[in-house]
């Protein structure tokens, strides 16, 4: 059973290539199964607000989180279910936030992918894209002040998010400060309905790395092995003091922007081209080719994870909802300076 | 020759002063336009102060090493008339002046409320205006506007300010004060409320001889007030319109001819009621009347015997008054008043001489929104008619 009670990423006891791969694959599969359940709950009216899925991006997301250690800083974005679980978020915390249980970490004040536990290095995003780059940089500056060595801060963003001024300012600043920051850009070809041709004019997003004075890495985001290798290298370089690393992965968003969106605008040619591959299918092939697991073993794992997801959601759905009368309705931590509500 | 002042300029945001570090020219030297003639240092940098005109350095008022505020006159340059005219500068025109917080030629920039399209300006002024503080204080003390009649307001447009009120109350404390009885407070409230209507009074004489003769011949003696009450009741029974009330655009008609009569009791006036007085003859009314008077005097009048009357009779003649303008009860339109009778000469046409008659005045005070003089006069005439045939009452 893959539950962790504190945010420590799961490191297999033996660090073999097989164990590393299969460890990451578990998170990918868990994320996929989790989100299938999430989608069906959404269509069943059990989820309030938006639902944003990460189908197609599980490999990239898991690759980053499995490369991080306890004590690192991780700021995931919208399509990072795999990474969140890999970094140590529990299924229960995720389910609770999504169904709005009063017992969840966000206590009903935030929902869906806006969740996190900042004190444990798992930052909670705000909706404005690019903002987390400078925030993680700030966390790293603090660690530097405290003399903490060997720490890496990582954040994820999409092709659209790289257009923001926030992203630009944050990465530029992190480069000036030579911080151990890893920015993983999931170029899934669309920002909502906006294709990359309308998002940026440079030939490849990774070309920007040189402009920022950071090292760029390019991956085929549909290839789990490539993701684990390249992202792992980027994290290692950051940890070694080489300054910020920018990883750009090409893949395709295999779902709508949110579950409210049917993505009819996605170019069909992309769907049938290599960039449209499902990384989980690729993983099955790679696992099979290496002889690490049989298809029926993978299916059995899938069923096991499904059962966990089912029972976790069932628990969360039975829990009490937020109660406005139990809220203190205070935004300041300093009670004596809070004015009270007019 | 005109002389131009050289003024310490504003050398950067928030800079307040600068120190003189160098004076490259001495008094008497010729200087060119825009030439640096004084070097100053702020906490950010060293800069030059220039002269706007060509001319002669006339005066230097500063010393090296000393600090001067922005806007200080540092010296003077003497220029030719043409030069001064060319640049439009001169002693009279000191531009972008010293940096005082009150800089600028601002006229009184007063605050004018901007209210568009409202018929009443949003200012708080005038005798009718009572500020929230006034109202709060008056509520606290249980005061009505009528209590403040004695205050002349010192505020805008003559309004009474809180200071005026507090001064007034302070002065009151110089007098001996005692609590008003609850009866007095109740009457005061009733009269104040009644007075919010436009009231008028009409009156005429009435011969009392027939009434007095009837009374003398009766075993049980009714007072003149009861005779008047019965006459009023019969008259209203014939036409109750004068006793109607006006509420908004509607006339509210009386349900029954219940008539009250004023009885002085201790500190005020009580008004017991004779129900359906139009249907009960005088002799039958009398015992009830006497009973009510007694109860009223003893302050033992039951609630059921008060209230609900549509008109009131008051016999102020008992106080020796011949004429009066009583105020109707706030819930009534009419009050009939009876004055003291006296023997007066009256011209008898038949006998062609003055004969003695006993006469009094009857008055009708009424809410002029409901009736006019004519209707009031007609009602009084009918009452006077009825009083000439007391045996029919």
């Amino acid at each position, binding site marked *: 059973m893959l539950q962790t009670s504190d945010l420590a990423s799961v490191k297999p006891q033996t660090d073999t290539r097989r164990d590393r791969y299969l460890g990451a694959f578990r998170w990918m599969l868990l994320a996929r199964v989790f989100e299938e359940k999430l989608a069906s709950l959404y269509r069943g009216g059990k989820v309030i607000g938006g639902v944003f899925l990460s189908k197609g991006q599980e490999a990239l997301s898991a690759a980053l989180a499995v490369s991080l250690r306890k004590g690192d800083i991780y700021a995931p974005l919208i399509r990072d279910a795999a990474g969140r679980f890999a970094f140590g978020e529990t299924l229960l915390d995720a389910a609770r936030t999504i169904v709005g249980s009063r017992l969840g970490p966000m206590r009903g004040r935030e929902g869906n992918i806006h969740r996190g536990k900042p004190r444990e290095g798992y930052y909670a995003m705000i909706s404005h894209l690019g903002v987390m780059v400078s925030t993680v940089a700030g966390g790293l500056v603090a660690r530097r002040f*405290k003399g903490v060595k060997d720490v890496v801060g990582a954040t994820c963003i999409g092709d659209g998010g790289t257009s923001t001024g926030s992203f630009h300012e944050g990465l530029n600043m992190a480069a000036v400060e030579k911080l151990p920051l890893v920015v993983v850009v999931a170029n899934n070809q669309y920002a909502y309905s906006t294709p990359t041709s309308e998002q940026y004019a440079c030939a490849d997003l990774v070309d920007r790395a040189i402009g920022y004075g950071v090292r760029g890495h390019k991956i085929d985001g549909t290839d789990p092995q490539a993701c684990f290798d390249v992202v792992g290298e980027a994290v290692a370089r950051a940890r070694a003091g080489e300054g910020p690393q920018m990883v750009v992965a090409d893949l395709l968003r295999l779902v709508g922007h949110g579950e409210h969106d049917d993505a009819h605008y996605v170019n069909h040619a992309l769907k049938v081209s290599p960039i449209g591959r499902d990384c989980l299918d690729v993983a099955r092939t790679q696992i099979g080719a290496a002889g690490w697991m049989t298809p029926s073993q993978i299916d059995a794992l899938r069923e096991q994870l499904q059962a966990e997801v089912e029972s976790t959601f069932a628990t969360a759905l039975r829990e009490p909802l937020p109660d406005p009368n139990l809220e203190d309705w205070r*935004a300041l*931590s300093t009670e004596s300076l809070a004015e009270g509500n007019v | 020759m005109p002389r131009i002042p050289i003024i310490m300029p504003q050398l950067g945001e928030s*800079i307040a002063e600068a120190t003189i570090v160098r004076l490259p020219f001495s008094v008497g030297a010729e200087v060119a336009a825009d030439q640096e003639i004084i070097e100053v240092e702020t906490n950010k940098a060293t800069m030059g102060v220039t002269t706007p005109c060509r001319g002669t350095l006339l005066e230097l008022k500063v010393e090296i090493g000393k600090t001067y505020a922005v806007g200080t006159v540092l010296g003077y340059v003497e220029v030719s008339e043409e030069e001064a005219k060319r640049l439009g500068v001169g002693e009279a025109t000191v531009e972008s002046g010293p940096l005082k917080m009150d800089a600028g030629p*601002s006229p009184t920039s007063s*605050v004018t*409320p901007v209210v568009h399209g409202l018929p009443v300006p949003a200012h708080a002024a005038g005798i009718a205006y009572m500020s*929230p503080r006034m109202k709060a204080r008056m509520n606290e003390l249980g005061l009505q506007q009528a209590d403040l009649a004695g205050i002349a307001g010192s505020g805008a447009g003559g309004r009474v300010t809180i200071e005026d009120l507090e001064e007034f109350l302070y002065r009151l404390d110089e007098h001996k004060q005692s609590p008003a009885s609850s009866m007095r407070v109740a009457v005061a409230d009733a009269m104040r409320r009644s007075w919010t209507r436009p009231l008028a009074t009409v009156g005429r004489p009435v011969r009392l001889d027939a009434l007095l003769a009837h009374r003398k011949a009766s075993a049980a003696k009714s007072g003149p007030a009861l005779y008047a009450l019965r006459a009023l009741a019969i008259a209203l029974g014939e036409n109750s319109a004068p006793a109607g009330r006006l509420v908004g655009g509607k006339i509210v008609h009386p349900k029954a001819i219940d008539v009250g009569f004023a009885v002085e009791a201790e500190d005020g006036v009580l008004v017991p009621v004779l129900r359906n007085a139009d249907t009960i003859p005088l002799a039958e009314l009398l015992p009830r009347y006497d009973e009510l008077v007694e109860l009223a005097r003893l302050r033992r009048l039951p609630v059921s015997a008060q209230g609900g009357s549509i008109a009131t009779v008051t016999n102020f003649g008992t106080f020796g008054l011949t004429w009066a303008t009583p105020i109707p009860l706030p819930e009534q339109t009419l009050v009939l008043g009876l004055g003291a009778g006296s023997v007066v000469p009256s011209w008898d046409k038949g006998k062609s001489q003055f004969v003695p008659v006993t006469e009094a005045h009857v008055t009708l005070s009424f809410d002029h929104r409901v009736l006019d003089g004519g209707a009031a006069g007609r009602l009084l005439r009918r009452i006077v008619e009825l009083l000439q045939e007391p045996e029919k009452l």
Partner: protein
Amino acid sequence: MPITYLEAIREAQAKLLADDPRVFIYGQDVGNFGGAFKATKGLAKEFPGRVLDSPISEDAQVGLAIGAAIEGMRPIVEMQFADFSTCGLNQIINHAATMFWRTNVKCPITVRLPSGGTAGAGPFHSQSMEALYAHYPGLIVLNPATVEDAYSMLIAAVHIDDPVIFCEHKYLYYHLKAESLPTEALPIGKARVARPGRDATIVTYSAMLHEALACAEELAQDGWQIEVVDLRSVKPLDTDTILGSVARTGRLLVVGEAFPWGGVTAEVVARVATEGFGLLDAPPMRLNAKDTPVPYHPNLWGTHRPTARAICGAMRELLHA
């Protein structure tokens, strides 16, 4: 040895850096240059590595501060001018201000805004932005008007566990001097009766305090005793002190240097009208800057925002209402 408002701010930062290793300063030109207004003069040298220069990136500056605060530091961000803080507005109001409420993790950052107008500064070097920030839940907004408050309130601000917007007034930087630094201060959140009075109350803050006091002095010649209240903190607003003053005088004028719509003056009047309606003997008045951007030329700037003369004009109306 007199000390200016600006020097008091520098002294406060020096003390903070010396007393608490969690404090650091981040802003443009704050390092060796000492800051555009010299508010950090000498501090980079005295505290190596604690006063850092940033690129021109207000968004990233605040973002960095937020991340550092999550990890337990107490950063001070110096904005070069309050007017540029809008480039970092998103991080302030949507990230820092919501951090505690969303995640239960405190965000003890202090953002210093050189605010307010000086002659010739123009629209983008003169703004007073306290109302903008006070509007958002989760922020504390302070406006010291005296040298003493500039010192003690900045120290207090950095000790508060919540994000603080510290509005310093540029005109007061070098124009206001005090004899010495204070050893004690009113608590954050309490207003101060700068001048007791009887006939009317002026509620104001920052540089306008001195204009109001000048006006009170002038009206004293005519026998009026004007009470002047210095808010000190815009949020939280000390409604009790304000109401207490209006209870004494019955007449209220609120003066602010900021734009008229929905500003601090409006908030004060709203509170007095709601909670102290029965205290007012005349309609409350507000005096603000004009409803235009701040003009550049001193002739225009001189009438754009309230001055002692304008305040006196308004007061005379109020006193005779």
